[in-house]
């Protein structure tokens, strides 16, 4: 027994071993953790599905959402025929038509296009304002007090009343300049973006304040890296995870705000469908045609639910303390 023990190489601990496989990429770890969160996978999947549906839908379902077909008005969706044989249903109008005979499936696709476009653009706008303000406040000490005071002031503004006021007041001039749809799109995106950047700014500032004191920033500064380069190369990549999480929240907020404005009747013009507008138009006749309320309502709710779950999963996946548990 002693002989075999002596055969073991005494210097094993000191030998350099090649690692068996290359080190794993950080994003692969994130993806592994993300996959464990079932809700987040479903939510992300649904968001991708809805985005693709509204992008590719008009090419697959080529009916014009605005076309009036007064003979086929008030057609019920096709699934009503399962329990109510006498209902007026048509195979080439699977979701039915509204009180002017416009195809509801085409309207859902067009409305989703508007809602998602407003949501994504407003989210990107609020994200870039928030990140800009947050990085500037966290990195440059001179700007910190001023910018954070401004953030606090914006946080104490009554957002929904101000949104209503701004949209009602500036509707006419913007419509005159950019056309009814374009003007409204710019107005809603700008107004939602300008009133929802504060949380992002606060989170980013906190992260930047902590990162700024770390050694790698000191090292970068000691070799003469300029402030702009430090922010671009070293700070922004490290604050990407809180930004992504607040991006999902921002998308949900933007979609809901646009729908709320449309619902209250200050959104897009009446012949331009969005989900909130379709919902609002259907409410007076919801006793006879509940599906016209349900379809856009479910679409809004599921999209926002998916986005919220996606944010939840991203927060867990991007947090290295939770990851791997």
């Amino acid at each position, binding site marked *: 027994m002693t002989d075999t023990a002596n055969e073991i190489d005494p210097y094993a601990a000191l030998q350099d071993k090649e690692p068996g496989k290359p080190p794993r990429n950080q994003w692969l770890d994130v993806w592994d953790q993300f996959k464990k969160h079932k809700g987040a996978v479903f939510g992300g999947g649904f968001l991708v599905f809805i985005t693709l549906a509204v992008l590719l839908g008009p090419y697959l379902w080529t009916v014009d959402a605005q076309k009036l077909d007064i003979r086929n008005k008030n057609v019920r969706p096709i699934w009503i025929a399962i329990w109510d044989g006498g209902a007026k249903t048509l195979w080439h109008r699977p979701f039915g038509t509204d009180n002017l005979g416009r195809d509801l499936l085409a309207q859902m696709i067009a409305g989703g296009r508007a809602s998602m476009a407003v949501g994504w653009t407003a989210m990107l706008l609020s994200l870039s304002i928030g990140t800009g303000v947050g990085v500037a406040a966290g990195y440059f000490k001179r700007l910190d007090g001023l910018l954070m005071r401004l953030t606090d002031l914006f946080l*104490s*503004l009554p957002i929904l009343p*101000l949104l209503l006021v701004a949209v009602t*007041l500036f509707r006419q001039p913007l419509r005159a300049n950019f056309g009814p749809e374009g003007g409204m799109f710019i107005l809603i995106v700008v107004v939602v973006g300008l009133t929802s950047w504060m949380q992002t700014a606060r989170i980013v500032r906190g992260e930047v304040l902590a990162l700024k004191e770390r050694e790698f920033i000191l090292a970068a500064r000691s070799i003469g890296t300029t402030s702009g380069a430090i922010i671009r190369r070293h700070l922004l990549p490290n604050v990407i995870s809180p930004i992504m999480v607040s991006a999902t929240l921002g998308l949900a907020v933007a979609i809901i705000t646009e729908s709320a404005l449309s619902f209250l009747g200050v959104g897009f013009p009446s012949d331009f469908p969005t989900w909130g507008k379709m919902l609002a138009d259907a409410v007076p006749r*919801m006793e006879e045609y509940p599906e016209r309320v349900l379809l856009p309502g479910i679409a809004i709710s599921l999209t*926002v639910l998916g986005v919220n779950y996606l944010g939840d999963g991203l927060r867990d996946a991007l947090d290295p303390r939770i990851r791997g548990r």
Partner: protein
Amino acid sequence: MLTFTIRRMITSIPTLLFISIVIFGLLQLAPGDPMAQVPLTVPPEVKQKMREALGLGAPVHIQYLKWLNQFFIVEPQFLIDWMTRDSFLFGWLPDTQLSMVYDVELEKLVPQQRNISWQTRSPIMDIVIQRIPQTLWVVGLAYIVGILIALPIGIYSAYRHYSVFDQAGTFITMVGFSIPPFFTGPLLIVIFSVTLGWLPSIYDTTHVVNDWASFKYQLSQMILPVMVLALQTTAQISRYMRASMLDNLNQDYVRTARAKGLKEGVVVMVHVLRNSMIPVITVIALGVPSIFGGAIITENVFGVNGIGQLLITALFANDIPMVMTITFIFAIMIVVFNLIADVLYGVLDPRIRYD
């Protein structure tokens, strides 16, 4: 703590001034003309007189200062006068007559000019005070119901972490978080008023409660709007409650309390709950103004004749002074409840020292 509170109160004055300037500036850019409804046969010089009577002739900064004066000095004077003249609580005090000014031409005391609505030509604060009880009843009750539902859900789902109840609770709060009130409102109306026919779909504000049957009707018409608003409150607050409980359940003092042989109920409901309530109470305080803003949509859906609906109708009628006043009242509430949350946080948590 007292110095902190006083300092916070003083710093909130410039905040309010800034907000009032923002709102005033926004409304100044409005293209609407209050004289647009006046018939064309009215000669221009009369129109100019009417415009000046509405206070539109003066330069912008004078208009703003006058508005500030009316909001912060004249209206409180009217309130004090009303309290010493008509109210039950202070009616025994002598009538103060602070709001009266001596008119030289008439040679007697006349009431001061108040901030009037362009729509109704009556003082704005009177209308607002008429509308506030409706909003408070519905929104306030919804908030309380929401909190009462949310706290047990949050506590139990944190205590049984990853159990079926926790999973279901998390899912339901997520759903409540995601479904906007303008969808839950019509949805509940379709289910409970149209299909089942149990509850009225429109809130009748003129309904007077004087006997048991009318009280039951009042209760039944409040259920739907309260449910819609409470769903949102529940979703938000139970999430905070759960997270806060989870943070505290893993602390060392919980293990110590269990090791001392305290009953599980005492450990959770006394030791952990009291510590977890600190952030939750501030969240509850912070949520009060936002629920008022959110109630705009719910009031619109159910026809509740409250302050949110007043704002919408004023906005569509181009009634600028009314919009200005209501928006500013919302802003005051946000600032005040922020302050209350900050102070509460310091009072409840002895580890936090602001000084």
